[in-house]
């Protein structure tokens, strides 16, 4: 009974605050976070289209906001989120089809998703700014 109060070094059950998430889990929650972010980004897409419908002055004003440092930062974040969600979403479709469930395949998929996000984002910005 005396032992019961002693601090123990038993393994703790996995919990978000004491458990280092594996890369696949980080990418999994990132899929959700980018999904929520992209939903908000869709509102900005609507605002941009709306500005064009209101005419040249409104559109030029919108483009001033978009070309501002904050606007470009949001656009960069939007593009990273878009390409990540696209790449990881394609992986989810493979999983939905019952494929690539082995741990080795998941680890390879992690790399493909990250590389795909970086390459697509870099390519899009290089082409756009060229």
């Amino acid at each position, binding site marked *: 009974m005396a032992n019961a109060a002693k601090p123990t070094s038993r393994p703790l059950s996995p919990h978000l605050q004491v458990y280092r998430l594996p890369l696949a889990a980080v990418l999994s929650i990132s899929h*959700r976070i980018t*999904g*929520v972010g*992209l*939903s908000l980004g*869709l*509102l900005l*897409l*609507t605002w941009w*289209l*709306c500005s*064009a*419908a209101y005419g*040249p002055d409104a*559109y*030029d004003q919108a*483009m001033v906001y978009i070309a501002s440092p904050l606007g470009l930062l949001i656009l960069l974040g939007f*593009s990273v989120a*878009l390409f990540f969600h*696209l790449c990881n*979403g*394609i992986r*989810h*479709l493979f999983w*939905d089809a019952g494929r690539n469930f082995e741990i080795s395949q998941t680890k390879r998929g992690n790399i493909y998703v990250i590389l795909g996000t970086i390459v697509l984002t870099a390519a*899009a910005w290089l*082409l*756009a*700014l*060229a």
Partner: protein
Amino acid sequence: MFASNNLRSPLGRARGLGSAKEGLHHWWGQRLTAIALVPLTLWFVAGIIHLAMGGEPYEAFMGWIANPCNATLMILFLGVSFHHAQLGMQVVYEDYIGGHAWRTGMIIATKFAAYGFAALGIVSTLICCFGG
């Protein structure tokens, strides 16, 4: 809902009652829109890159959106994206909001907002095509 002294497991109670009838529809809708969004997203990115590459911004945009293919794809992109977004947001609410009233309220508000903004974007696209 069930008496707490019922010794049957939740699975035992649910077995044989059939599905809740709505799961597959949501799941299938999310996957179908995901597949559609792969080519639509690539077209959208290509369009934005094209617009960024030059010209007087307003004229470049109006010329681009006046193309029937681009207008059609933009309308599809808006409709499918907002549909996909509200399906995804619904899952997020269902997972993280405990209170039934809050959760249902947020789901309803998000669905209304999604279709409202989708309509606004589609109408704006049509005005750019026909209104100018």
